[in-house]
């Protein structure tokens, strides 16, 4: 599905990613664990094509993606989804319009946006919050809106950068269950960053350990 070949990235001479190679299998729930400052978020920004590696290759289904430019790059990004620790919802939009955003930017017709948004909100169990401003939601509800928004364009790959780090333990469990259900029923691949092994072992079937910008181990976890 996604493979990285000897990816390197430096900021002002400071090498943050030091030659990472990874194979993320189709439909896996792939965990990347590491301490603060290990380079996890940087790695996700590279994999999600927000930044270019200094060297190395990024391939989606065998095709180079790190060299894409302008329109082709935007098109590729639209086939990826991402959720964040701080949810990063648009405060100027209500729940419905947040989820509609990715559909608007691909030029989807109004008539086709509404049913799709309602379907997604039903998926994350927020149908009754459609018109609510996002500031009125709890952390867990915000993350579910963010997940619905990330799924709007039917991505083949969903990136999660510490999706539960801002949530309490109970809400964490419910978000992780939702992500598992999404992977299973929508058949997509999930890559999740975390610094907590409990979070990884509750969900992932692979875990790569990141230390100071390098992968030090990859394990397969016995997990459904």
């Amino acid at each position, binding site marked *: 599905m996604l493979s990285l070949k000897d990816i390197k990235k430096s900021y002002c001479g400071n090498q943050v990613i030091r030659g990472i190679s990874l194979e993320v299998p189709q439909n896996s729930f792939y965990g990347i664990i590491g301490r603060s400052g290990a380079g996890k978020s940087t790695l996700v920004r590279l994999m999600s094509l*927000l930044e270019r590696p200094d060297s190395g290759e990024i391939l989606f289904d065998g095709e180079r993606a790190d060299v894409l430019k302008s329109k082709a790059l935007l098109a590729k990004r639209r086939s990826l989804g991402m959720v964040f620790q701080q949810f990063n919802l648009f405060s100027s939009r209500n729940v419905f319009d947040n989820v509609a955003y990715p559909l608007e930017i691909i030029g989807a017709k109004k008539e086709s946006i509404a049913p799709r948004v309602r379907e997604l909100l039903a998926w994350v169990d927020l149908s009754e919050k459609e018109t609510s401003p*996002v500031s009125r939601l709890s952390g867990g509800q915000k993350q579910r809106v963010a997940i619905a928004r990330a799924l709007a364009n039917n991505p083949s790959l969903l990136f999660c950068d510490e999706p539960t780090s801002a949530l309490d333990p109970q809400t964490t469990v419910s978000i992780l269950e939702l992500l598992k259900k999404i992977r299973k029923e929508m058949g997509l691949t999930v890559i999740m960053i975390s610094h907590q092994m409990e979070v990884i072992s509750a969900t992932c079937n692979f875990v790569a350990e990141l230390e100071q910008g390098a992968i030090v181990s990859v394990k397969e976890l016995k997990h459904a």
Partner: protein
Amino acid sequence: MLDTVSAVFAMLLTPLCETILMVAGTTFFSILLGLPLGVVLNLTDPVGLKPRRMLNNVLSRVVNLLRSFPFLILMILVFPLSRLIVGESTGTKATIVPLAIAASPFVARVIESALKEIDPQVLLAARVMGSSTWQIVYKVMIPEAMPSIVAGITLTVINIIGYSAMAGAIGGGGLGDLAIRYGYHRFRTDVMIGAVLVIVVLVEAVQLLGSWISDRMIKKR
């Protein structure tokens, strides 16, 4: 007494309309110029979405220069341009030209700093979904920053009212012109007080309206 009040009021009516026209026109054109300028300043900033150091430096200098330029001198310098655009160099419509030139760098800074307040992580989310820069600007940045933009524009409009009174002194018309011509040259203190009062009320009304709109936007979120 009542006669004087109504007489003064009658004298104020036309200049008030002129002032409102001048301020509204200036606000319109300064947003027209200042909004894109502010957006470009924000985008080309070293930490912006499209860093362009050189362009950013040049624009920033021009904006600072225009902001620090004494308005009266600017107005006189711009006379030929006003004549070119409006067909005359004095009068209410002509004065909109220098006023808009003076106000648009303010608007640009207002927009620039309002956009700077947006959480970079939110912009990252917009980028990762495959938004083009243009889509980020008009679908994310401007709506997210709208309450600050409205508050900043409100301040600018109040400044414009002040400047328009000044412009009145050299042939711009409006309440400033009235206050000078009658109040100062003809010792009609009542007219001067009337003009000043109307300007104060105008400023207050703009402030109230601006705060109300901005607060309402925040409360809806």
